[in-house]
């Protein structure tokens, strides 16, 4: 039996994203969470981390800087806080996976460009909407000549949107719109986010509309089905709700449903699941290369 040493990771931010990540990291064969650091000793998130037997701190980024044995950090705070965190971390050579829509760092969507995670110290996970839609947008982009416009509408349960998400709505939209353009041929993009308070809570739902002249529907359907299979490898609850369909002359619609694993929040919170599953997939790839990066920084 081959025994590999696990890569040490830390989480900053003890909100919904941070704690759900912890559950997922604990299941990883390659990653070990050695620190969860927040700003309030009384936060629910820190208490959950303690119950799970993970070392905690309420000193935020400082605790990470003082720790001597961390290879990768997940930043689950806010876009504004991330700017400061990255300034402090960059020179240390520690890998940084940014869960906030800060626009810094290399955007990675595992189904599309996971290889990029090997050669960068700083990855940005875009947004939950970006992680759910970009695999499909990229797949369709690869089988058509031109896309005039892509529109993404995500509805998520209010309960799954923590305070940082609520403050960062503008950044979420801006960062996701940019990433859609970066990962496709589309000339324009628009992103809409709806928070629905319905009880029982609604599953995360994503609708993507494309403006494509004479869309080759057979190719599109095949490409989308194939991509859903790839995404399911790292996000088991990722499913097509509405197969690509041409509605009107030049509009193609695809709908997806993301059911969560039910780790920290119940299964409706697919938005937490998709970005966190993607981040863990990125960390596992980074883990193999981060030590090399560290050595080169050290030299």
């Amino acid at each position, binding site marked *: 039996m081959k025994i590999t040493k696990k890569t040490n990771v830390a989480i900053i931010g003890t909100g919904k994203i941070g704690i759900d990540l912890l559950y997922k990291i604990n299941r990883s064969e390659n990653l070990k969470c050695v620190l969860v650091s927040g700003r309030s000793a009384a936060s629910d998130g820190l208490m959950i981390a303690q119950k799970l037997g993970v070392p905690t701190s309420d000193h935020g980024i400082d605790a990470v800087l003082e720790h001597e044995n961390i290879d990768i950090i997940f930043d689950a705070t806010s876009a504004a806080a991330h700017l400061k965190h990255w300034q402090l971390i960059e020179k240390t050579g520690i890998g940084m996976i940014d869960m906030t829509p800060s626009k810094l760092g290399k955007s990675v969507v595992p189904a599309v460009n996971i290889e990029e995670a090997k050669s960068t110290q700083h990855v940005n996970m875009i947004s939950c909407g970006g992680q759910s839609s970009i695999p499909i947008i990229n797949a369709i982009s690869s089988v058509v000549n031109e896309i005039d416009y892509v529109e993404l509408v995500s509805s998520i349960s209010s309960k799954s949107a923590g305070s940082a998400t609520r403050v960062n709505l*503008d950044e979420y939209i801006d960062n996701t719109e940019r990433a859609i353009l970066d990962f496709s041929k589309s000339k324009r993009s628009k992103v809409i986010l709806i928070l629905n308070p319905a009880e029982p809570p609604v599953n995360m739902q994503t609708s993507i509309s494309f403006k494509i002249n004479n869309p080759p529907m057979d190719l599109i359907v095949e490409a989308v089905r194939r991509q859903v299979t790839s995404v399911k490898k790292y996000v088991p609850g990722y499913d097509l709700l509405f197969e690509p369909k041409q509605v009107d002359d030049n509009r193609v619609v695809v709908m997806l449903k993301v059911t969560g694993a039910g780790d920290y929040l119940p299964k409706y919170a697919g938005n937490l699941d998709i970005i966190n599953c993607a981040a863990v997939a990125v960390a596992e790839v980074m883990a193999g290369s981060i030590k090399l990066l560290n050595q080169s920084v050290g030299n």
Partner: protein
Amino acid sequence: MKVTLHDATLRDGNHAIQHQLDCQDVIAYCKAAELAGISALEVGHGNGLGASSFQVGLSKHSDSELLSIARNNLQKTKLAVHMMPGFATIARDLGPALDIGVDLVRLGAHCTEADISERHIRYVIGRNREVVGSLMMSHMVGKHKLLEEAKKFQEYGALGVSLYDSAGAYLPEDVKEKISYLVNGLEIDVGFHAHNNLGMAIANSVVAVQYGAKMIDGAIMGFGAGAGNAQLEVLVAVFEKMEIETGIDLYKVLDCARLAANSFVKKAPLISPTSIVSGLAGVFSGFSKHVEKAAQQYGVDARDIFFELGKRKVIGGQEDLILEVAAQLKRNLKRN
């Protein structure tokens, strides 16, 4: 007693014509509204700034085109916009709208989600413009929750908070209960935005004022989403009869109605069978055109779509679910 009427014609009315409002009509109506002494006139896409989309409908003219021509034709009447975080952002939409010269921002959030608007409200205040909060689909929760959310708007600095009956689902008793509770619990003004799905728009607006509302929304000829809004010229007449001051000239607002009838109101809003169902099901009025289209495409009953949407507690902005529900109803039909 005094009440401020906000005219939503050139915004909510845009729902009635699938957001195809023409620049010429904006110019003509702005001039007429100015003459009538309308306090504030809302202009733009039916779902507000930044909302032009496949999801809720593509605008014929961009926000900046509509706002610029309105700006050029309004002096005393305030130029207002509706904006919902999640659709619009400060950088892409709100900032440019204020650059054009918008005077009043009506910041809408679903009635349980006021906190997503904090940054946008503070931004508007920072730029020395007026801002009021709008709690959309306010029939969906009780008075305690509404007050809790309204207090957030108050804390962020909004000058007032309006309850939106976006689905036209309120009965006068509901208005009385919720408006009086908010009036008692808040330091800022309270308002009401009616829809007419159950024929209650004027009655509900009157009850709102009787229980302390200071801001009432209307649209000329009721020109608004679904069964339309409270008919503005009727509100003016009724308030005049009740000796409530609106600052609006009755004859001139009636002239506005004539102008609208002869230009952009091709078909006055009607309480259609689907609108009645929409009101009963508590579904956003702006869905009606999309539901009718999907019903036709899938060969299913629009009324069934509305009731199913109601069961799922959909809110404004979830228009994509209409297609999914229509497809599901069709599958059920085949199975039976």
